[in-house]
């Protein structure tokens, strides 16, 4: 379960203050697949960064799986992200020095799994998304679509409670985007909670629910 109460985010640049999120109250139940949509500058990515604990809100509360994250230290947030959350970034965000397998295995190693177990789980995760033959490829040897699939594999290999995806299809061609969305739909079918930011109506409609933002406020739940 995800809940935000009165979420405010203000950016300060010298004397200039810009409030991007203006008191957002939001709730998503476990197993939901939600698309956060809105025009450019509506605050959808900022909203997701707050919910996913990558950023610190100016005011308000975020409750993830019944845990109020207010007052958590950076280390506690890091540990929470490692164990409970998964991330898919717009530009894949794979580590260039690690192979596909190593990229996926890294968070598992961090979770204190043995190397053998982590590699076994990572291999299984990559095979599920059809990249079983490319586990030893470096990101630079993969296409954009393949890199994004590795990124999804990394995000879900440790079975997170919530998967956050920030414009996961923005850099992909139509075919690769469809493949990515198919993976999301399968994950959702398996009970994965997914929060996806997108500006593409076609993919937004594939979600179970659309939350629309405009000018820092939710205008459609």
């Amino acid at each position, binding site marked *: 379960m995800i809940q935000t109460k009165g979420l405010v985010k203000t950016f300060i640049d010298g004397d200039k203050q810009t409030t991007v999120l203006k008191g957002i109250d939001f709730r998503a139940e476990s197993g939901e697949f939600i698309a956060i949509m809105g025009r450019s500058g509506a605050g959808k990515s900022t909203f997701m960064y707050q919910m996913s604990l990558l950023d610190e809100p100016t005011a308000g509360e975020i409750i993830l799986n019944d845990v109020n994250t207010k007052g958590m230290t950076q280390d506690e947030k*890091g540990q929470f992200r490692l164990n409970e959350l998964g991330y898919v970034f717009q530009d894949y965000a794979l580590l260039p020095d690690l192979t596909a397998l190593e990229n996926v295995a890294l968070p598992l190693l961090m979770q204190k799994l043995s190397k053998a177990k982590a590699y076994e789980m990572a291999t299984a995760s990559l095979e599920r998304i059809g990249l079983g033959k490319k586990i030893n490829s470096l990101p630079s040897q993969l296409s954009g679509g393949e890199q994004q699939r590795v990124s999804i594999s990394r995000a879900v290999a440790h079975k997170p409670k919530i998967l956050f995806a920030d414009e996961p299809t923005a850099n992909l061609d139509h075919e690769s985007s469809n493949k990515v969305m198919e993976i999301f739909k399968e994950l959702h079918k398996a009970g994965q909670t997914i929060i996806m930011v997108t500006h593409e109506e076609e993919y937004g409609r594939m979600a179970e629910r659309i939350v629309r933002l405009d000018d820092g406020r939710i205008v459609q739940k």
Partner: protein
Amino acid sequence: MDHIKIGFFLANRQVRRASKWTTGLIIFVMVLTFLNLTVVSGVLVGLIESSIKAERQYYTSDVLLSTPDKKEYIENTSNIIEMIKSLPEMEMYSPRYSEAGTIEANFKENTKVTDKEVSGVVFTGIDPDTENKLTGISKFVVEGSYLNADDFDQVMIGSLFVKKYSPVEAAGFTALNVKAGDKIRITVNGITREMTVKGIVKSKVNEVSTRVYLPEKQLRELIGRDDYNVDDIAIKLKDGADPIVVKEALIKAGANKYAKIQTYEDAQPKFLKDIKDTFALLGNMISSIGLVVASITIFIVIFINAITRRKFIGIMKGIGIHGNVIEISYVFQSMFYAICGSFIGLLILYGFLVPFIDAHPIDFPFSDGILVATVSGTSIRIGLLIFATLIAGYIPARMIVRKNTLDAILGR
């Protein structure tokens, strides 16, 4: 422990997949730094060390017995020589007679008192064969030839007294226009004789070049030393024998009642000891600068590396990789550079530089400079280099890791 393992894993992958040219360049800088740390101070210390070594080889030998203060010679010499002969560590010894006097060159041409070429000297009476076996002095003969035991009225002059080799004029000191084969007039113990310069001996060991040698039999006659009491005895020990043990054995046997007993270290001139300390200090100062330069180099390398990878550092933090793990990975990378640099540096140092400079010493006016690189000293320098590198790698990594995670990911 897990953080260290994962940090090592990340560092390993980053180094393995980094540009080989960049890695090579960083390691090259570390090699130069290592050599700077070891060679500069090693050469400075080597200058003096070789001087000390030469002093030991060509004058004092391993243990030196000399005339005690307020005495004219080593009394009871024959008994002391018996003691020396009974030492199991003794390989050979050379007794020497010494007496102050003067030598005069071109005495037939320079008749006026003001034109006289006279120099105050120390005459040293030696058994030429024994002395040569002990010190190898004959190899320093640059003109004429070495002495024989049965030479009569023939001397070998230290190059310091010969103008050709010592063209420096100083108050109270006169270098003579003399060459091998010339006649000189010597005065010792009130006796004046004409003698022939059989040879000129030139060495960087001051004690060798500042004496006038003649066979001990004739000097003993000139100074009337009928009791065979000598002025110093140089003792060469067998390989591996400890001069301190021999010194203590001689003291225990009572030789110190008649002679000043010194190991070669005790007998070093004080100025050599002082210069050695000063050069070691200078070497350490220069090495410290090298260490700072190496630290700054690694700092810049790691800082640039971390800055350009800021986004990936942000991503790692974003997916829950602890900041410590990332810092440790950079520390391991720094360590890799330092260890590789030190290892290659060690190969160059002990595989090439030390043997090369040993075989081709650096020609300095007062010594043949060698490169001193002791294992303990080198180990300390490697430790220092690795430690400085670790710190220099850790600080920039920490600076970047502490940045806001989202700002790093988004490149803000």
